[in-house]
Structures are given as structure tokens and as C-alpha cells.
């Protein structure tokens, strides 16, 4: 099954409080690909990510690397897919090392404790993300950019090859946005990770994604390369936005233009 895609979603329907959130989504993500899901507020981006991460069961089919997600036991699933939530909970008083070690949970026997191998894996990830100097610092005392690196570190400690990032840069300034996304891209190449992200900043989203999916009202309104999806007409139609799309070096650049 080596040819199986990392993610395959077929005809996914999600309804909450009798309101349809996702109405028949199809999505395929190849191994090693970076796909960014965009769409206006309330389009269902986070819900789609939750379904792919196995956090909600809904009519339709979701498979990860060829295995239907409902047949994956929770611990096995956590070794395959790691999620960085939009605003992860920061437990009070928890040091960085302990937080990243939580990522080893799927490898630690229930009611057991971490092994030397788990600690080694965590220290390797911390070194890789330049966090060695932070191990004893409390997570709550770190800056936004440092924290985002720690969240990524916990996800990488899971040893999963599929990374789901929900608005990974929403809390960061533009410099740290680039730093975090460059890091994700580099890790993706080094560890052959597959990345599915949701993002609001369209220009920066287009710079990093191999492909983009535009969600609107619970459906896929457009999918393709950033140049195919980030067009003035599609953005006007689905975001009700007045923008100019310029041709950038790595992808289209979106410039908001005030309506007359």
C-alpha cells in the first residue's frame, strides 16, 4: 500500500446543532505534500482538520496512509498523525521538557512511565528545534514564537509523519510567521512529513503550500496550485473581498484594495 495517499477524505459530512458544517468534502493529500486549506471564517477549515485527526466521527470516509481512521486504535493513530491546535492549552507551571514529553504518550504504556528511549527522542527534537536552553523554563513564560516552536516539538516527538497545523501562525508577527513556516518546511523535507495546514494569511499560505483547497460554506469551492486557487475572482466570490493578486517570486501576492 506504499502508493496510498497520506490523507484520503471521501464525501465527508459534519453537522453540529443541526447546522451543516461540512457538506460532502473530498480531499486527497499525497505523501510528502503540503496542502493548505483556506476559506472565510466559519467555512469549516478547523472541522475538516479535526475529522482528519480523528477527533470527530462523521458520515463519510477518512483514511490515513490507506487505513480507515476508525479502524486505527487511538494510540496507533497518535503515532501516525500529530495535531498542533489553533491555541493549544498551556498547562500552568509545566516546564518545556515535560510538555514536549507529553508527545511520547502514544509510546508510553498506560499507567507506565517514560523510557530512556522516550527521553532521548525528546532531547533530539528539542535540539533540532533549538530549544535545549529552554528545557526547564515554564511554557507560560515563553514568547509567542518560542511557544509555537515548543508546540511543534511536542507534535514531532509523537514521531508521526502526518502533521496537522491549525492556524500555526495566527498569534505571531510576520518575522516569526516566516521562521515557523520555514522550520516546518525544512522538517517536512528532512523527515518526509506530510503537512495539512489551515491559514488565514493568503499570501504567506501560497508561498509554502504545494496545493491549496478553498473551502466555502462547507464545500470545496476550488482546489489546485496556489496560482489556480488564489485568483481575484475566486477570492471576491467566496471571501467577498476586494483584492488585487500580484505575481510574486514564490506565489501569488494578495493585496487588499479598499472598495469604492
Amino acid at each position, binding site marked *: 500500500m506504499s502508493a496510498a495517499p497520506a490523507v484520503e477524505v471521501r464525501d465527508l459530512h459534519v453537522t453540529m446543532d443541526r447546522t451543516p458544517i461540512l457538506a460532502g468534502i473530498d480531499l486527497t493529500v499525497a505523501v510528502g505534500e503540503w496542502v493548505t486549506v483556506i476559506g472565510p471564517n466559519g467555512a469549516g477549515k478547523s472541522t475538516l482538520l*479535526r475529522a482528519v*485527526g*480523528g*477527533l470527530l466521527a462523521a458520515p463519510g470516509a477518512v483514511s490515513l496512509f490507506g487505513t480507515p481512521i476508525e479502524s486505527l486504535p*487511538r*494510540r*496507533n*493513530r*497518535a*503515532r501516525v*498523525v*500529530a*495535531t498542533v*491546535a489553533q491555541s*493549544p*492549552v498551556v*498547562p*500552568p*507551571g*509545566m*516546564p518545556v*521538557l*515535560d510538555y514536549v*514529553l*507529553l*508527545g511520547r*504518550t*502514544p509510546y*508510553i504504556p*498506560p*499507567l*507506565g*512511565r*517514560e523510557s530512556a528511549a522516550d*527521553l532521548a527522542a525528546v*532531547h533530539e527534537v528539542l535540539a533540532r528545534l533549538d530549544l535545549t536552553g529552554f*528545557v*526547564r523554563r515554564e511554557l*507560560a*513564560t515563553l514568547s509567542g514564537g518560542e511557544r509555537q516552536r515548543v508546540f511543534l516539538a511536542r507534535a514531532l516527538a*509523537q514521531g508521526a509523519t502526518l502533521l496537522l497545523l491549525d492556524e500555526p501562525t495566527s498569534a505571531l508577527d510576520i518575522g516569526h510567521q516566516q521562521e515557523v513556516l520555514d522550520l516546518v518546511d525544512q522538517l517536512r523535507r528532512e523527515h518526509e512529513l506530510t503537512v495539512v495546514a489551515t491559514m488565514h494569511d493568503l499570501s504567506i499560505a501560497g508561498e509554502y503550500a504545494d496545493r491549496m483547497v478553498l473551502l466555502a460554506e462547507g464545500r470545496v469551492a476550488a482546489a489546485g496550485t496556489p496560482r489556480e486557487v488564489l485568483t481575484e475572482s475566486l477570492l471576491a466570490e467566496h471571501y467577498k473581498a476586494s483584492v488585487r493578486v500580484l505575481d510574486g517570486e514564490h506565489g501569488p501576492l494578495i493585496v487588499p484594495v479598499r472598495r469604492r
Partner: protein
Amino acid sequence: MTRVAPVARDSSPIRPAETPNPSRPAGLRPRWLVAGLVAVLVALVAGVSLGPVTIPPGSVAAELLNLLPGVHLESGLNEREIAIVTELRLPRVVLGLLVGGMLALAGGCYQGVFRNPLADPYLLGVAAGAGLAVTAVIALGGAGSEGALTGLPLTIPLAAFVGSLGAVALTYLLGAAGGRSRSPAMLILAGVAVSAFLSAGQTYLLQRNADSIQAVYSWLLGRLATAGWHDVLLVLPYAVLTAVVVLLHGRELDVLSVGDDEASSLGLHPQRSRYLLIAAASLGTAAAVSATGLIGFVGIIVPHTIRLLAGSSYRVILPLSLLFGAAFLALTDVAARTVAAPAEIPIGVVTALLGGPFFVLILRTARRVLT
């Protein structure tokens, strides 16, 4: 980089945890474990030697060691004094240790399960639920005489357990009624409402069954004074079960601290762990309440002090809460029976007297932890 402590006083007993090995997680340091065991032993010896007849601590220690198989030490005590040690005071102190350990452990556990630093068996209504159920058993079950209580019928712990589980479920449901706006304060407000409701039910039952008031009140105000070995034996199995289940879940409580969604994406079944831990903590609380009546604040004072001094991982908080909670209540009992001797102050009154000001201190120094 130095961290500025919330209270900038050099004499403050509240300091950051000792410098640990940076490559290890913030687990339980042996130094703290030893301190906890020493505290329990000190409380044990002090509890047995202090009272209307003071017995030298050395002799107490010798008599306690004599209880171990194969040990024969000369304590210099006469038969009457030996009886005071082994039949009167020792069961009382041991029961105090068990109950204190259970209340503190349950408090720490509830705080983790509900991700709420203010959770406590008393504040969640658990104790009131157990109180109502026990009152119902005494008042309606015909166990209206003092004599029926000293035997502590087996139905009382069971009723306390059912009552406490019912109360915690009610509090949780009420607290969750706020939906997405659910906050730590919501849960505590719900606990206050549930406690008031259940206490009202209890008062009503007592009014209707006036002949059992005496029995119920002597139980409510704490029964350490009349404790015998049969009380210890009745609480012990529940206490051991609770301690084993809760202590094994320290790491899971740390994982739960990132929230249900993230815990679930890390491979855990948060709801499954939560139900199991609530049942275990409520069982421990119920056993404690059924033996000694309502004793408040232990479950909030002890875990918070440990959190501030020794670290915030539940792998640290839970075992140390068990040990220091045990020592705390046994020593509080010493104060309860010596401060106004020969009269005894109900132990629940002493913990509340200590707990009120302490609660304020915790709120002031631990603002960082609480928010």
C-alpha cells in the same frame, strides 16, 4: 534569568522547586518523598504521645515498633499506658492519617480531572452528598441510636459513596450547563449550589426524624474522638483502592492538563480516565466522610502547598498530597484535642479555622497558578 516570585519576601517559605537535573522531567524528587514520610512519622508519634496523659515520644516510638512482628523493645510504660497507646490513641491517629491522606489525594485528583485549581471534595458538594446519604441511612434506616453508630454499619460507607458520586455528577452537569463559557468559577458556583441543596435536604430529614439528631450530629462534627480499630479496618480497603488507582494515573492527569481534544490526539481516552478517577476520588472521600464526618479544606490546602513548593506535575502532587495530607490532619487533631483541653474542638472546625486564612494566602501567592 531569575523569576520574580509573586511574593517578594526572602523569609517566604514559598520558593521554586530545588534545581533538578535538566534532562529529566520534573518528577518526584527523593528528598520530598523522604520529607513526606518523616512528616507522617512525626505526626504519628506526636499524635500518640500528646493528650490528657502525656507519654514520652521515645516510649511511644518503642511501643509502636513493638507492634511489628519480631520486635521486643523495653518502653518503660505500664499496662495502662500501653493500652492508651495501642487501644485509644493509635487507632485515632491512624484513622486521622488515613482520612487526611484521602481528602488531600481526592482534592489533588479532582483538581486535575476538572482542570480546576479550586476543586475540592468539600467545594464540589461531594462531602455534602455523602452527608445527606449517611443522614438518610441513619434517620430512615432505624439506626437512630448512638450505639448503632459505634459499630459503623457497612451500609454507611456505601451510602456515602453513592451520595458523593451523585453530588459530583450533579455539580459537573450544572457547571457544564454554561456550555462553552464554562470556567473554573462556574464549577465552584455549581458546587456551592449543590451543597446548599443537599444540606437543605439533610436538614429537612433531621427535622422529620428528631430522634436521630444526636447520632447524626456526633457523626457530622467528626468522629475521630471515638475512633476504634474497627473504623480503621472499615476505611482501609477503600483508602488503599483509591490510593492505588489515583497514584497510577499521575502521568495521565498531566496529559489531561492540555485539554480533552489534545489528550485524545495524544492517544488517550480522556472521558474514560475522567470517570474512573472521579469514581476513585469519590470513593476515597466517601470512606473518609463516612468514618469522620465532614472535614473541609484539607483537599485544597495540601495539594496547593505542594504545587507551590515541590512542582506542578501530578506525579509529584498526588503522592505528596497523600503523605502530607495524612500528617496534616493527624497534627490538626492533636491541636483539636490539646488547645482547649480538657474540652475537644471538633476537627472540622479546626481545619476550617486554618483553611479560611490559608485559602486567602493561596489566592494571593498563587495568582499565577490560578489564572
